[in-house]
C-alpha cells in the first residue's frame, strides 16, 4: 500500500495527531528535566500560563497561530513574567513564589480577557486554550514535499530539534548549573544567562504544546515524565532520555486511550503520565515503595537468622541449650538447617559456627568501642550492640579493633571471638 495514501486517510489523521503529541512531549521532557532538576517546576507552571497574552497579542498583530511571531510573543511574555517577579521581589520584598503567583495569574487573566473581547478577530477559544485541540491538529496542514504535514507538528518538531540542539551544545554548562548554581557562577559560568535561556526554552515548549494540549496540561508534560525519570535513574543524561521516552509513551498511549474512551486527548495524556509516575513510585529500584518494603523484609529475615545463630553460639559457650519458640523461629531454623549452618539437633555446624562467631565478635567489639568513646553505664552497652552487630563488616571491624587496642574481652569481661 502506498504510504502516502495511508498517511492521507483517516488512520493518517490519527497518526499525525499521535506524532504531534509525541514530539510535543519530547520537547517538553527535554526542558522539563532541567526545570525539575533545578527545582524550577513552578516557574514552568507560571510560564505556561503567562505566555497566553503574548500569544494573543502576536495573533492580534497579524501573526498566525503556531507561526514565528507567536513564538516571539510567548518568549517576550515569559521574560516579562520573570522580570516582573524580580521587580516585586526586590521592590517590596515579596517572596519569589508569591510574586510569581501574582504575576502569572494576572497575565493569564489578561490573556483570557483579550481573547474573549477580540473573539471576532481571533479563532482561539478560551477553553481550548486550557486543554488544546489535539484532535483537530491534523486538519491544519502545509504542503511539504508532496505530503500534507500538520503545521502544529512542524512547529513542535522544529522546537524539539532546537531544544535538543541547544541542550546538547550547552550540556556541560547546564549540568554544572543544575548541580550547584553558586559554584558554577563562581567558576565563571553564565548561570543567569543559562537560566534565562531555560525560561525562554520553557516558553517555546509551551507554545509548541499549546495547540496540542493547551496551557495547563503543558505543565504535566513538562514535570511528570522528568519527575518519574528522576526516581528511576540518577545521571542527568539518563534522566533526560528516560523522561523523553516516558513522555512519548504517555503521548501515544494517552491519545489512543482518549480515542477508545471518546474523551479529550490532552486530559488523557496527563492522566497516563500520572499513572507512569505512580508506577515509578511503586517500582523504582532502590527507593521505590516495593523495593523498600522488600529491603526491610530482607533485613528482618537476615537479622532473625543471625540472631538465632548468635543465640546458639552463646548457649554453646555457656554450656546450655537455646530454646526454640515461635513461627518465625521455626522458619529460620528450617532455613539454617537446609543451608547447612545448623545440625538437626540445633548445634552449630562449621559454617554456622564461623558466621555466629563474627556476629558475637561484632557485638562485643562494639561494646568495647562504646565503652571507650562514649560515656555510657555498663548496662547500656548491650542494647545498641544488639542491632549494630548486624551492620558491622570486616573492614570496619578491623578499624574498631585497632582503635580499641585489640582487646581480649568486652567491658563485661567476656572473651571477644577472633576474626575468621
Amino acid at each position, binding site marked *: 500500500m502506498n504510504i502516502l495514501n495511508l498517511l492521507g486517510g483517516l488512520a493518517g489523521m490519527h497518526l499525525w495527531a499521535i506524532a504531534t503529541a509525541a514530539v510535543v512531549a519530547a520537547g517538553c521532557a527535554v526542558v522539563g528535566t532541567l526545570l525539575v532538576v533545578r527545582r524550577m517546576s513552578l516557574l514552568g507552571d507560571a510560564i505556561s500560563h503567562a505566555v497566553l497574552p503574548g500569544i494573543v497579542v502576536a495573533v492580534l498583530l497579524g501573526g498566525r497561530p503556531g507561526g514565528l511571531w507567536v513564538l516571539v510573543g510567548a518568549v517576550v511574555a515569559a521574560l516579562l513574567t520573570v522580570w516582573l517577579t524580580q521587580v516585586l521581589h526586590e521592590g517590596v*520584598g515579596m517572596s519569589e513564589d508569591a510574586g510569581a503567583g501574582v504575576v502569572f495569574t494576572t497575565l493569564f487573566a489578561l490573556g483570557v480577557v483579550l481573547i474573549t473581547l477580540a473573539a471576532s478577530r481571533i479563532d482561539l477559544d478560551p477553553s481550548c486554550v486550557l486543554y488544546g485541540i489535539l484532535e483537530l491538529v491534523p486538519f491544519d496542514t502545509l504542503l511539504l514535499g508532496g505530503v500534507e504535514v500538520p503545521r502544529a507538528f512542524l512547529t513542535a518538531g522544529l522546537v524539539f530539534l532546537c531544544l535538543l540542539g541547544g541542550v546538547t551544545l550547552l550540556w556541560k554548562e547546564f549540568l554544572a548549573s543544575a548541580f550547584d548554581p553558586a559554584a558554577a557562577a563562581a567558576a565563571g559560568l553564565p548561570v543567569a544567562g543559562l537560566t534565562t535561556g531555560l525560561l525562554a526554552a520553557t516558553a517555546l515548549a509551551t507554545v509548541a504544546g499549546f495547540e496540542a494540549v493547551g496551557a495547563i496540561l503543558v505543565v504535566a508534560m513538562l514535570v511528570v515524565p522528568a519527575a518519574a525519570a528522576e526516581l528511576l535513574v540518577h545521571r542527568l543524561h539518563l534522566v533526560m532520555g528516560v523522561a523523553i521516552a516516558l513522555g512519548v509513551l504517555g503521548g501515544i498511549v494517552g491519545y489512543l486511550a482518549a480515542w477508545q474512551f471518546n474523551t479529550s486527548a490532552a486530559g488523557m495524556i496527563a492522566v497516563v503520565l500520572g499513572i507512569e509516575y505512580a508506577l515509578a513510585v511503586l517500582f523504582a529500584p532502590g527507593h521505590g515503595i516495593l523495593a523498600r518494603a522488600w*529491603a*526491610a523484609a*530482607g*533485613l528482618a529475615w537476615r537479622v532473625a537468622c543471625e540472631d538465632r545463630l548468635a543465640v546458639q553460639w552463646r548457649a554453646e559457650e555457656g554450656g546450655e541449650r537455646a530454646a526454640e519458640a515461635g513461627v518465625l523461629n521455626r522458619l529460620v531454623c528450617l532455613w539454617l538447617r537446609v543451608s547447612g549452618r545448623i545440625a538437626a539437633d540445633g548445634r552449630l555446624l562449621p559454617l554456622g559456627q564461623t558466621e555466629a562467631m563474627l556476629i558475637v565478635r561484632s557485638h562485643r567489639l562494639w561494646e568495647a*568501642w*562504646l565503652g571507650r*568513646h*562514649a*560515656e*555510657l*553505664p555498663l548496662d*547500656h552497652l548491650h*542494647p*545498641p550492640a544488639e542491632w*549494630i552487630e*548486624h*551492620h*558491622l*563488616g*570486616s*573492614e*570496619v571491624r578491623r*578499624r*574498631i579493633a585497632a*582503635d580499641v587496642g585489640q582487646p581480649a574481652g568486652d567491658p563485661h569481661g567476656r572473651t571477644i571471638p577472633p576474626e575468621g
Partner: protein
Amino acid sequence: MSRPQPDSSPHCLEFHDVTVAYGRRPVLWNIDLTVDGPGLFGIIGPNGAGKSTLLKAALGLVPLAGGSVQFFGQPLRAVRTRVGYVPQRETVDWDFPVSVFDVVLMGTYARLGWFRRPGPRERELARDCLARVGLADVANRQIGRLSGGQQQRVFLARALAQQADLYFLDEPMAGVDARSQEQIFAVLSALRAAGKLIVVVHHDLRSASEWFDRVALVDMRLIATGPAAEVLTPENLQRTYAGPLDVLDELGRAVARRERTP
C-alpha cells in the same frame, strides 16, 4: 556520670539511652545524660555534632529512634508549661507582619490555652519581659527592623514570658554582637540566681568555660559531662575533634541502607 541526689527528688532533665535518626540514618547514638538545676548548662561540640538535634529531640521536635527523655521525672507533655524554648533565628520569616511586642506576647499563649485572647495580665507580663532584656523602647517595631542581637533578645523575652523552670536555648550567641551577648548572659545569670535551670547549645569552645557551670561534650555520642573545667580538657577535646567519626559515618550509612559496612 550522674551526680548522686541528696534526696529522692527527680532530676530536672534526664536523657536515657537516646538515639536520634534522620530518615534511617542515626545522628545521635545512645546518649545518657542527667542535668540538675539550678545552673547554666552548656552542650558543646563541633559543627554537625548533633547538639541542636539533641535539644530538638528533648522537645519532641524530632522523633526519638530509641530511648526517652524525662523532665522533672515526667514526660514532656505533663510539664510543658515548665519548659521554655529559644530556637535558632534562621527558622523565622523576618518579614512577618508582627511587632516585637506581639512576638513576646506569644510566649503567654500556651498558658492561655485554646481560643482565649491575651488580656491585661498577659500584656503586663510581656512589657515586663521586654524591659528585662532592654527592648522596651522598640516594642512597636516590626521584627525585621532589628539587629541580630536585638532579634535574639526578643526571642529571649518571649521565653521569659513562658515563665518556665527549665529553659532551652539553641545557639543564642551565634551572630550576635558582643554587647548583646553580655546582655543576654546577664539575663541568663539572673534566671540562674532565681533558681532556674538553663540548658544552652553553644557553638564556641573558648567562651564555654567562662559562661557555664557544667557542660556536656557531644559529638554524635556523649563524650564527657561534668564541671566545665574538668570536661573541657585538651584530652577530651582531642577525643572530640580527632574522634573516630569515620566509623560512625560508615555505620550510619550502612544502617540507612539496611546493609553491612564494608
